[in-house]
């Protein structure tokens, strides 16, 4: 009872602390930076985090279960596995498909994976790290997603998977991509890291492919600090993903549990002696990519705010769109993929060719006025030092990808961008164009 009383007192103190440490502040346009993204939280996250530390469970415990359940309810799926980052989730998504347990559906070195170069490295890196061959297609300016009409041209006898991100929250053409993946019996992996809450045909992205991934890095729709998840449709595939995540082991006990399978000492694997402790049998060459309980505690509280976060993102997007539509002589504004309702990660802008200014001019101006901007991640991944010498194929050209690399940037739409900040940002755009 005393322990409960102390915990309750700590809770009350946390609420007081939150009010003092993180008061809401008026926007000061002369001083404040308008970040493109950031963590949005209240005392609930702090309470959960402290509760997790008071439990001192450390690895996966009650908050992990709670967070997983909320994610499974959100996506209406049976298998969500938490990871220590979205990048780790991507690594697991591809690597799991190399499991020998998949028999003739296993991805093997030299197999091809269709993807795009206009994106983030952690969609490409796992393909390369597993000795698979990325096959690049160009993207459409405006949607920033794969040009679906070219997909079938990319198919070869070695094509085994399609791995695509819903770029910056905008779903790719799921009808077209799924049609090809089904026609050629390919794995479809959705990188949903930037699109939590986006829908296509009324269904959430992350629920169409065999596997999907999510990220909870602070820039994303919800945050756990570092963190991510893998969403798996098939139970057997989920087991494989879990194995790769958990050291490659065959055992599926949760942290601190034993003999979940009921036959811990009565099986024979490989050339190990009969009855070798199942806790130490490894059926894959895996990693340890699990999320901690403290991260899950934050994530569980964040899930309760996700719907409102997404509503604000969509509303902010609309306001920026309306405000910047006056400048479409110079700017290409983002367009939602038909049949989709994006929960926009950001507001993406591409500068049209003109003789008055470049993307860098505009970006410098905005940054000088404390408006944070970002390029579309790596631009063209094939031009990055890390990826210059990788084995790959390009179908057609990557002209649009290069154009995006040179001319595209984004500003934020997250729920920390208030009406006042939006007005300020738009006013700066007006100033820029007036001074041209």
């Amino acid at each position, binding site marked *: 009872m005393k322990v409960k009383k102390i915990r309750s007192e700590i809770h009350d103190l946390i609420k007081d602390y939150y009010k003092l440490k993180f008061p809401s502040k008026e926007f000061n346009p002369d001083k404040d930076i308008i970040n493109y993204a950031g963590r949005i939280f209240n005392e609930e996250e702090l309470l959960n985090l402290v509760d997790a530390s008071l439990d001192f469970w450390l690895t996966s*415990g009650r908050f992990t*279960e709670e967070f997983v359940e909320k994610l*499974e309810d959100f996506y209406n799926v049976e298998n969500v596995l938490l990871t220590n980052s979205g990048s780790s989730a991507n690594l697991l998504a591809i690597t799991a498909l190399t499991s020998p347990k998949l028999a003739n559906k296993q991805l093997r070195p030299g197999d091809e994976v269709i993807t795009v170069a206009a994106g983030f490295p952690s969609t490409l890196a796992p393909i390369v790290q597993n000795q698979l061959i990325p096959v690049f297609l160009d993207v459409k300016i405006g949607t920033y997603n794969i040009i679906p009409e070219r997909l079938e041209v990319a198919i070869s006898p070695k094509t085994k998977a399609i791995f695509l991100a819903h770029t910056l929250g905008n779903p790719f053409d799921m009808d077209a991509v799924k049609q090809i993946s089904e026609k050629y019996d390919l794995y479809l992996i959705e990188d949903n890291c930037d699109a939590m809450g986006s829908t296509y045909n009324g269904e959430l992205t992350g629920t169409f492919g065999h596997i999907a991934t999510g990220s909870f890095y602070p820039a994303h729709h919800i945050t756990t600090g570092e963190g991510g998840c893998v969403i798996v449709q098939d139970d057997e595939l989920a087991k494989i993903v879990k194995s790769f995540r958990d050291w490659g082991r065959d055992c*599926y006990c*949760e942290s601190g549990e034993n003999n*979940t399978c*009921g036959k811990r000492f009565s099986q024979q694997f490989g050339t190990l002696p009969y009855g070798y402790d199942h806790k130490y049998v490894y059926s894959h060459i895996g990693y340890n990519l699990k999320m901690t309980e403290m991260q899950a505690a934050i994530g569980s509280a964040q899930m309760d705010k996700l719907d409102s976060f997404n509503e604000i993102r969509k509303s902010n997007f609309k306001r920026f769109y309306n405000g910047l539509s006056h400048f479409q002589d110079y700017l290409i504004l983002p367009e939602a993929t038909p049949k989709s309702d994006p929960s926009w990660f950001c507001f993406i802008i591409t500068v049209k060719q003109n003789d008055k200014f470049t993307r860098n001019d505009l970006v410098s101006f905005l940054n000088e006025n404390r408006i944070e901007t970002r390029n579309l991640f790596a631009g063209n991944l094939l031009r990055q030092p890390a990826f210059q010498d990788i084995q790959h194929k390009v179908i057609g050209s990557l002209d649009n990808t290069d154009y995006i690399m040179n001319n595209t940037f984004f500003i934020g739409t997250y729920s920390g961008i208030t009406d006042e900040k939006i007005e300020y940002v738009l006013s700066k755009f007006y100033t820029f164009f007036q001074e041209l």
Partner: protein
Amino acid sequence: MATSKKIKAVICKCKIIDDRVLLLRMKPQKRVPNFNPGQFLHLTLDKYDPCEQWPESRVFSIAISPETRMEKIEIIISKQGKYTNRIFEEIQLGREIWLKLPYGDFTLNDRLGENNIFIAGGTGISPFLSILKSNVSKDQKIRLYYGIKNSRYFVDKNFLLDKINSDFNFKLEVFIENSDDNQYLDGALNIEYIYNQNRTPKSNYFISGPKEMIDTFSNYLLHQRIDEERIIVDSWD
């Protein structure tokens, strides 16, 4: 399998078959993850605090179809040792208990063949009940050989007898060790008899029951040159 969950449930039916076997029905207090017929759960009698480690528990095959999991979860318990003795002593209607599920790979999935032989020894009938009650067994040719000590242990008799009448793909033979009822075969389950009845090359054998029975039957079938892949067992420590 679906990500396993810890679920609080309330005992809503406790049918004591005799002092060694009971059938337990529980009402889950929250959403039950989907499971594959043939999988099992962990049951603990001790109070579970989510802030603490999962207490000592035992495994039991789930004996219902996944389609009805939100309304009830059923298992069959036989007295084996200290913990199951405790269950018999402490179980009562209305008591809250904790479960975690689903686990296990004694599932049909892609293993159904042209001729499916289910061999159930005693409470080993449980996973087969789950399979037979669910859609996975629909239109599949199944022969169930069910061995029990006496007719009192004939679990879910009405369901199985109804199934014989309603599903022409399903056949049932019951072996009772001490039986004076002509409906059933006298004596213990006999693997030689079962094998001779099913000498089609593409028969798959699914065996669930006491470890000794599983080992003996599996070895016999392997000796008859049945492929190891066609012998699927539900065995525990």
